[in-house]
C-alpha cells in the first residue's frame, strides 16, 4: 500500500503526550504557589504586597523563571490539550461510571481553563508589556493589575460580581483539573498500577484538589473584602505606596512605574512618592502573582 506519511503529531505522539503530562505537572506546581500567595490577601494588603514584592525582588531573572516554569509549559499544555480534546467521543449517558465522569470533566474544565487563563492574563497583565499595546489593552479592560499596588488593584477587579464568579469557577476548575491530572499522570508514567493503589492515589488527589480549591476561593474572598469600599481600597493603596517607597530606597526592588497603579480616569491622583524611573523590561508579559 502506498501510504501517506503520517503527520508530525502522529509520528511524535508518544513524546508529545508525555510532554503534555510533564508540562501540566510543572505548571501545576506554579498554580499551587500562585493560589497560596494570593490567599495571603486574607491577611490584609500588607501581607499580600510583601509576597508580591518578594517575587519581584528576583528582578532581571524573573522573566526567565516565568518563561521556563509558567509561560512555555502552559502554552504547550493548552494547545496540545485542545488537540487531545477534539478527538474525544464522550459516552457518559450509556456508561455513567465515576471515572468516566472525571474523564469528561477533565476535558470540560480544560476547555474552560483555556479561555479563562487567556482572559485572566489579559485582564490582569494585558498579555504584552509594550507601551502602545498596554494603552489599547487598558481600553479593552486589560492590564488592570498593578504588582506594586497588588491588593488594591485586585480588590478593584473583584468588585465586579460576575468577574468574581468566573474567577471562582476558574479556581475550582483548576484545582480539579490539576489533581485529577496528577492522578492520570500517575497511570501514564506507571507510578500507580494496581486498582488498590489507584484508588488510594485518587483519594489523596481529590483531597488535595478540595484543599487547593478552598485556598483559591479564600483569595477571591480576601480580594473582595479589600474591594468592598472606597475607603479600604485607599487604605490598601497607602500601605502599598509606603512599602514601595521603602523597598526602592533600600534597593530591594528596582523602581518600576508600570507596575504601579495610575488612576488616569479617577478625579484624585494618589500621591506618588517615588521618582518616575526608567522602565526596565517593558516587553515581558508577567503574571507571576
Amino acid at each position, binding site marked *: *500500500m502506498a501510504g501517506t506519511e503520517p503527520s508530525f503529531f502522529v509520528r511524535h*505522539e*508518544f513524546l508529545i503526550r508525555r510532554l503534555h503530562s510533564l508540562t501540566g505537572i510543572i505548571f501545576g506546581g506554579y498554580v499551587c504557589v500562585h493560589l497560596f500567595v494570593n490567599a495571603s490577601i486574607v491577611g490584609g494588603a500588607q501581607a499580600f504586597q510583601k509576597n508580591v514584592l518578594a517575587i519581584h525582588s528576583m528582578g532581571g531573572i524573573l522573566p526567565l523563571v516565568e518563561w521556563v516554569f509558567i509561560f512555555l509549559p502552559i502554552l504547550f499544555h493548552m494547545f496540545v490539550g485542545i488537540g487531545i480534546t477534539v478527538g474525544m467521543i464522550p459516552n457518559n449517558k*450509556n*456508561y455513567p*461510571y465515576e471515572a468516566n465522569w472525571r474523564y469528561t470533566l477533565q476535558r470540560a474544565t480544560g476547555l474552560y481553563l483555556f479561555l479563562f487563563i487567556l482572559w485572566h492574563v489579559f485582564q490582569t497583565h494585558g498579555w504584552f508589556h509594550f507601551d502602545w499595546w498596554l494603552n489599547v489593552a487598558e481600553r479593552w479592560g486589560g492590564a488592570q493589575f498593578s504588582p506594586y499596588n497588588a491588593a488594591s488593584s485586585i480588590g478593584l477587579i473583584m468588585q465586579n460580581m460576575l468577574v468574581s464568579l468566573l474567577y471562582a469557577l476558574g479556581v475550582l476548575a483548576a484545582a480539579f483539573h490539576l489533581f485529577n491530572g496528577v492522578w492520570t499522570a500517575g497511570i501514564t508514567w*506507571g507510578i500507580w498500577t494496581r486498582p488498590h493503589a489507584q484508588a488510594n492515589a485518587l483519594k489523596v488527589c481529590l483531597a488535595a484538589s478540595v484543599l487547593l480549591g478552598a485556598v483559591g476561593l479564600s483569595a477571591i474572598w480576601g480580594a473582595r473584602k479589600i474591594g468592598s469600599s472606597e475607603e479600604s481600597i485607599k487604605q490598601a493603596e497607602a500601605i502599598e505606596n509606603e512599602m514601595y517607597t521603602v523597598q526602592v530606597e533600600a534597593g530591594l526592588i528596582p523602581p518600576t512605574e508600570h507596575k504601579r497603579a495610575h488612576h488616569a480616569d479617577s478625579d484624585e491622583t494618589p500621591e506618588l512618592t517615588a521618582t518616575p524611573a526608567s522602565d526596565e523590561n517593558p516587553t515581558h508579559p508577567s503574571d507571576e502573582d
Partner: protein
Amino acid sequence: MTASSTKRESFDVRILRQAAPGEPSRWETFRIPYEPNLNVISVLQKIAAMARNAEGKETTPVAWDCNCLEEVCGACTMVINGRVRQSCSALVDRLLEEHEGEIELQPMTKFPVVRDLVVDRSRMFRALEKVKAWVPVDDYYDRGAGPRESQESQEERYPLSECMTCGCCVDACPQYSKVEVERRPNESIEEHQARQAEAEKSEFLGAAPISQAMLFNRHATGAMLADDRLNALSGPGGIQVCGNAQNCVAVCPKEIPLTTSIARAGRQTTVHAIKKIFDR
C-alpha cells in the same frame, strides 16, 4: 418488579438494522411473546422464526453472530440497552427490569457493520499483530524445556489470558473512534482489507491489545519480543492515546484488570523510552 413481569404477555425489541456495509440504518421493532428465562440469542431466534415486525409486516430476518453461547468467544457482542456486552449472557428478565417493556439492540458502535447486528472486528486482530501478542516459538527446533514460571507470575498472567478479543473494552472507550473504509466497486476483499488496515494504522490500539502485550511481556519466552511490543505501544495509536476514562475495565465481561495492564504499559514504555535515549 417481579409481580409485573409474571403478568407480562409480550415485550418489544427495537433493533438498529442495516442491509449492507455503507447502507443507511433504520430502527425496526419486534413484539415477542414473553416467557421466563429468555436470553437475547433466544429472542433473536424467535425473531428469525417470525420474520414479521411489531406492525405485522413481513421483513427480512435479523442477522447476528454467535458461537459458544457461554460468554467465552465474544462473537455475539452487541450494544444492548445502550451498553456493550455479549447477547448470550444478557438475560431478558434482567433487561426488562432495567428498562420496562422494551429491549434495544444495536450493532457495536466502533466497528464497520456487515449486516444488522454483525460487525467486522478484524481491527482487533490487526492490533494484536501490531503488538506481537504471541510467544515466538513457531518453528521445529528442539529448544529443550521451557523456562520455569513462578506461581505468582502465573497468577498475574492467567486473568489476562482470559481475553476473548470481544471488543467491549474499545466499544465503551471514549478515545477509540470508528474507522470504516468503504469498499469500491470491483475491489477485491484483500484490496479493501489492505486499505482498511492502512486507514487505521495510526489509530488507537485499545485496551485489549495493550493488555495482551503485557501478558506476553510477562511470559519468560514471550519477553524475547518485549522491545518490539514496547516500540509498537509507544508508536502512533499506542498507549499514549489512553485518556484514563477506565470504561474498559468496567465493561470487560472477563473482569480483566485492563487498567493495571495500561498502567504497566505506561511504566514499561517510560523505562523503554529513557533506555532508547541512552542506548542511542
